[in-house]
């Protein structure tokens, strides 16, 4: 006993010095990240939170004063914001399930055939493309006399609308473009998850007489439940932040902006066109609350699944 005490004391002393060294090294390694975090994230978030309770315009900073919850209350009486919230919600509720289903479908199809890599590359191309580029591409394809309408006329003799200038079709057309853009990205996540399903499960299902669709519904879909949930939440978070696509498309449309207004577009307009920066900050926190809620729902469900 006595023998083992001595070396451990020396050991402990040596460790103390190296503990300090290690702590120093640790702080040096996270220093750049900490500076970025405090200067460009935490600080601004606190600032934005304070400003969201103020009347504040960058044009007239001296006129800034606290107005309590007025910005937040005003938001929910503002027809433009309510329209933006409505549009964004509809957009999310359509885009997310459709792109998820499409991603799963493509992953299952591609997983079963040769040339997986080639198809994977092709399907993923829209996802790596700049959204501004995508908006431009579809701005042309969806012209009244663009490729889509020409094909519709040639094959079905239907005269298609002027999609992005039609109050009925503009938002759905934007949704189609969004789905086209993101389906490939979520397909990749599904493909990776598909590789983790043990082949024994498929063999067992085959022995039980399951075929094709039955296997898909009884093995694949349930085994991918976790991934599906993740893909839906990631999709929702992305959908609520939609900006680039609507900015470019609505900027080149003759429609009143309200028709395709989304939350972040409204935030951008209020913050930097009309310079109502307190109001825009309040909008940012409403968006944050929505996203936080979605994330918490995800944690709640996945957490329960784990335990």
């Amino acid at each position, binding site marked *: 006993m006595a023998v083992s005490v001595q070396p451990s004391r020396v050991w402990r002393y040596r460790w103390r010095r190296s503990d300090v060294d290690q702590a120093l090294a640790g702080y040096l390694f996270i220093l750049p990240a900490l500076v970025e975090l405090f200067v460009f994230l935490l600080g601004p978030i606190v600032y934005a939170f304070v400003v969201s309770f103020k009347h504040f315009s960058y044009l007239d900073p001296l006129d800034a004063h606290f107005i309590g919850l007025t910005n937040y209350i005003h938001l929910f009486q503002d027809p433009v914001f309510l329209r933006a919230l409505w549009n964004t919600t509809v957009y999310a509720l359509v885009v997310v399930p459709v792109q998820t289903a499409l991603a799963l479908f493509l992953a299952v199809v*591609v997983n079963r055939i040769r040339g997986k890599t080639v198809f994977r590359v092709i399907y993923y191309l829209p996802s790596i*493309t700049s959204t501004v*580029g995508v908006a431009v591409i579809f701005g042309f394809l969806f012209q009244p006399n663009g490729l889509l309408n020409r094909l519709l006329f040639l094959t079905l003799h239907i005269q298609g609308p002027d999609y992005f200038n039609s109050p009925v079709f503009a938002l759905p057309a934007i949704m189609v473009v969004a789905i*086209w853009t993101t389906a490939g990205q979520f397909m990749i996540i599904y*493909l990776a998850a598909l590789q983790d399903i043990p082949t024994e499960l498929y063999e067992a299902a085959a022995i039980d007489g399951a075929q094709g669709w039955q296997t898909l519904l009884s093995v694949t879909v349930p085994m991918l439940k976790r991934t599906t949930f993740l893909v839906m939440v990631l999709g929702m978070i992305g959908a609520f932040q939609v900006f680039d696509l609507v900015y470019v498309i609505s900027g*080149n449309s003759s429609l009143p902006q309200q028709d395709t207004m989304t939350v972040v577009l409204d935030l951008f307009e209020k913050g930097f066109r009309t310079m109502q920066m307190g109001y825009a900050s309040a909008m940012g926190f409403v968006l*944050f609350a929505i996203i936080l809620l979605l994330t918490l729902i995800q944690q709640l469900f996945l957490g329960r699944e784990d335990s």
Partner: protein
Amino acid sequence: MAIHERGTKWRRARIGLYVVATAYALVSLLPFIWSLYTSLKPTSEVFQLLVPWHTLTVSSYASILHDFPFARWFVNSLVVAVIVTVGNLVVNTFAGYAFARLKFPLRGFLFYLFLGIMMIPGQVVLVPIYIILVNLGWINSYAGLTIPFLLSSTMVFLSRQFFLGIPKELEEAARIDGVGHWGMFFRIMLPLSKPLLAAQTILTFQGNWNSFLWPLLIGQTTSMYTLPVGLNSFYGQYNAYWNSVMAGMLLLTVPMMIIFVIFQRQFVQGVASAGLKG
């Protein structure tokens, strides 16, 4: 007979799969091919479905590069994306390593701080960062386009996960050989983290190359536009010249596609790991 029946059925199903896969490949590719074709048509013919081969011309490319600052925007995009990517590699990998392998006071707290930040949408800080940049005099500058964007909490998290996966024995052996903390990172850990660095490089570069909202806010004169911002402004003014608009669009998208096709394995691994673990 049952086996034979299953065989033909399976073969038919497989043909069906190929048909479906090819059909969606067309949906995926046709918009790009059509845009390329449009960029080569003369301005007056852009709405003709098909034009004679000999009328195809690259004059729209000459026009955007010669008469409009697309070359400048391209260089801006490249400079900004390279700086942001290199910066992110350093900042995130360092932090991820420290959180995974070094003990220091408040480590747990700081890590949860980074995790918590991940949930906050960037748009929340749009107004304050704009004001900070105005006060620093960084609006309309490379500093403004790069320095606020050198941290990605997601990448810090992924780096930490990666370093946690490297066996402890390796570290202990090196420590016995007298390797210090810096040596440990640069000589032992870094050479092992090529997959991490590759995925991070590609995802960060792609994200920044395509970034629109921030550069739209920060780049205020034509000379400081990045390609997406420049394309948007060109599109707004010259949307009758669809061939030139498409040429500009391809200048923006084709470099990314080339990088993607070359590094598609790293892309896919990166997206899958960011998606599955994130």
